[in-house]
């Protein structure tokens, strides 16, 4: 086989229905691990934990992309092949369908009775009957053509249901458009997360985000300009017996400033009700507590007076956090547990039993020494590096209580707590295209599945007998009606019956 011949053969294989079928199957199969293993894109913390729990298997699975299935080369290979096959398959069909749409139905077959034809006799001239039949068919939106057989019988050939193929092509092209929409979103879109305490503000620049990610072509420098303040945050939990503690309401009252706009506007942002600012949307995605603490050093100087964000660990908001005090000498560090409704048991230790702040306390472990902040390696605000520190002790505090640290290292006081809300701010310029394409896909699919391509024929034979009296000049003709549907499992019986009945009705 020549090289060209081989390429042509390869292309034919790739664009065959069977290949499409197998690729669809492959796509289903390669998606499965993405639902089983935690994925970097959605749950990076779980991924790290998984790898830590399975130190030998973890890195192997990681290297073959099982923690990032939908971005892995093998996943991409499958869907890219599928879409190449799709394009190769439907583009030629466009041309074929275009000419089919503009051509006339093919002539009626010689022998209609072989097709389960339906024959009867009516009074009239064959020409008139054919004209009637054609009129009826046209009224029902059939495309018709008339003709005559060598034996003198006349026929109408009619076809209907071209929209089926149109719908099928629209559907497959819409799939390509959806992919384009997804790609545009992936390249130009961006999304960031930020935690904002009650009363605190945020302005939309890269440095203010806790985490930010954007597509290769997104512009991190040119984020839409706006800022907001989280004025208040409301949350309610179920207190009935059933599903106790489940969140029932959370809403953030936000004061928003935009450039070029006089004054601020106040908005209520809830789950399912994001705030739309230009191309960006601000979603409320989570919330938690920030205990307010005052730390004094050994001389009694206040070295920290702030609310520190703690992250919830369970549905009852048992929350963990870290307090770093670099300005005391020696430096101080605390690991803490914030409990909105405190309880302590043998096996769970201190934990929260309800998400609302009904009985607040913090459990603290204190360290002194060197926080390691100058080492040049950036540290997360949620972890405390205790390599160069010594533990001072453990204590629990309620609001208003303070703890004198051992060895005269200072003191720490819990003065209260604030709430914080976390926001996801996202811009996806491809989503409108994806939505429109999805709607087109559903419309095309419905046409393609519910419309049947059918052909029917009406054939009128020569006059059988002439009336004897002069008044009764009209003859009787034999009429045959038959039809087929192009898709297996369908027929044209109903359409044929309908035409037969109408023709008979007119003849009588």
């Amino acid at each position, binding site marked *: 086989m020549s090289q060209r011949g081989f390429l042509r053969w390869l292309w034919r294989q790739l664009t065959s*229905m*069977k290949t*499409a*079928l197998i690729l*669809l*199957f492959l*796509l*289903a199969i390669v*998606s*499965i691990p993405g*639902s*089983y293993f935690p*994925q970097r*894109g*959605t749950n990076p913390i*779980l991924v790290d934990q998984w790898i830590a729990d399975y130190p030998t298997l973890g890195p192997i699975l990681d290297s073959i992309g099982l923690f990032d*299935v*939908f971005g892995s080369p093998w996943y991409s290979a499958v869907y890219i092949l599928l879409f190449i096959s799709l394009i190769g398959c439907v583009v030629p069909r466009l041309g074929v369908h275009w000419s089919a749409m503009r051509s006339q139905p093919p002539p009626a077959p010689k022998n209609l009775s072989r097709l*389960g034809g*339906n*024959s*009867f*006799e009516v009074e009239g001239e064959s020409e008139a009957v054919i004209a009637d039949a054609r009129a009826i068919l046209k009224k029902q939106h059939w495309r018709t053509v008339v003709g005559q057989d060598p034996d003198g019988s006349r026929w109408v050939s009619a076809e209907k249901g071209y929209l089926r193929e149109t719908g099928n092509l629209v559907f497959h092209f819409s799939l390509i458009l959806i992919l384009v929409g*997804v790609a545009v979103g992936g390249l130009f879109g961006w*999304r960031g997360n930020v935690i904002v305490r009650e009363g605190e503000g945020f302005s939309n620049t890269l440095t203010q985000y806790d985490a930010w990610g954007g597509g290769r072509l997104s512009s991190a420098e040119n984020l839409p300009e706006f800022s907001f303040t989280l004025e208040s945050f409301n949350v309610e939990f*179920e207190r*009935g*017996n*059933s*599903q106790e503690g*489940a*969140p*029932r309401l*959370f809403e953030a009252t936000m004061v928003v400033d935009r450039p070029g706009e006089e004054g601020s506007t106040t908005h209520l942002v*809830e*789950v*399912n*009700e*994001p705030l739309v600012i230009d191309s960006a*949307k601000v*979603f409320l*995605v989570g919330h938690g507590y920030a205990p307010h603490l005052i730390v004094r050093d050994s001389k009694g100087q206040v070295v920290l007076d702030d609310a520190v964000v703690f992250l919830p660990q369970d549905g009852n908001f048992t929350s963990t956090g870290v307090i770093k005090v670099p300005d005391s000498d020696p430096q101080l560090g605390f690991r803490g547990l914030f409990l909105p409704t405190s309880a302590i048991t043998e096996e769970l230790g201190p934990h929260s039993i309800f998400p609302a702040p009904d009985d607040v306390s913090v459990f603290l472990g204190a360290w002194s020494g060197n926080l390691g902040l100058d080492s040049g390696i950036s540290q997360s605000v949620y972890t405390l590096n205790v390599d160069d520190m010594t533990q001072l002790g453990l204590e629990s505090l309620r609001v208003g209580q303070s703890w004198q640290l051992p060895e005269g290292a200072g003191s720490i006081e819990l003065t209260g707590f604030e709430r914080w809300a976390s926001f*996801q*701010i*996202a811009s*996806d310029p491809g*989503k409108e295209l*994806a*939505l429109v394409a*999805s*709607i087109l896909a*559903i419309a095309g*699919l419905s046409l393609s*599945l*519910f419309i049947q391509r059918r052909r029917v024929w009406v054939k009128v034979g020569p006059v059988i007998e002439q009336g004897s009296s002069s008044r009764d000049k009209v003859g009787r003709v034999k009429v045959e009606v038959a039809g087929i549907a192009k898709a*297996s*499992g369908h027929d044209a*019986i*109903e359409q044929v*019956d309908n035409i037969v009945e109408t023709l008979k009705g007119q003849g009588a």
Partner: protein
Amino acid sequence: MDFMNSVQLADASNNFVYASMVILFLATISFSVSFAAGRRRVSPVEVSSRRVLVEPSGSQVHEPDVALTQLDPGRRAANIGMSLTWLATGMLLIGVVLRGVWAGRVPWGNMYEFSISSALGILVVFLVWSTQRDLRWLGLFVTIPTLLTLGMAVTVLYTESAQLVPALKSYWLVIHVFAAIIGGGAFTVGAATAGLSLISGKGWFKQLPPREKLEGLTHKVIAFSFPIWTFAVVAGAIWAENAWGRYWGWDPKETWAFITWVIFAAYLHARSTAGWKHQKASVIAIVGWVAFLVNYFGVNIFINSLHSYAGM
């Protein structure tokens, strides 16, 4: 609701669900009796075809309906089964509606509610379809999975009603779940006909419609449910965009909805691919339904997902 306090409403809803299970069980027995009796009746139940005979005079006669003229005990039992299924469906509808009234929202807030609604979905798809053609032979194979679903619901999945968590408060939820329930109900009926097409003609199953007929029926149901499922997935994406800021995030529930969709797309393709139209296509339809089940039970119960919502 002043005339009934909430406890009464809850009990009423549960009682209607239990009553519908009892009636559905009786329906299953009737269908079984009919099935057992049908073993002797070899001629397939073939009523839907409206083949018209043409007499020389030109008048037409509809072919005598073999099935309907034989009112043997088996057929009578099947009729009783159909009536009981209608009754059970009515009861279940009332049970689901009362549940919604009690909760003051659509009754799709947790796995229990979703299951009883899905059972209703299966029955509704079956019964509506049965008004178009004779489906008495299919009754047994629809009532059994429905009973299993309801059984799971009242034993394993039962949850007291409560309000929805905020992420579920959206009219897109109503649209999305409604489409998923109808699509899933039809997939279930389709899996039943696909499964039967694989065994039709053998032993006891000689009484079923012939294989090709069953394959055609399977295609019809799935052609009906596939666009609905597609719509459910899109509606879910719109909802996700509103709630979480991204329309698609490969959350396990989304992933399995996609897998289900791709497999049924493969089914429809198979029906147009030489060499794949028959048994292989039926197997694909069953695999698609299994993916639907994985999404429905597996993901909610075993996998940590954003969608593993309230009460389960």
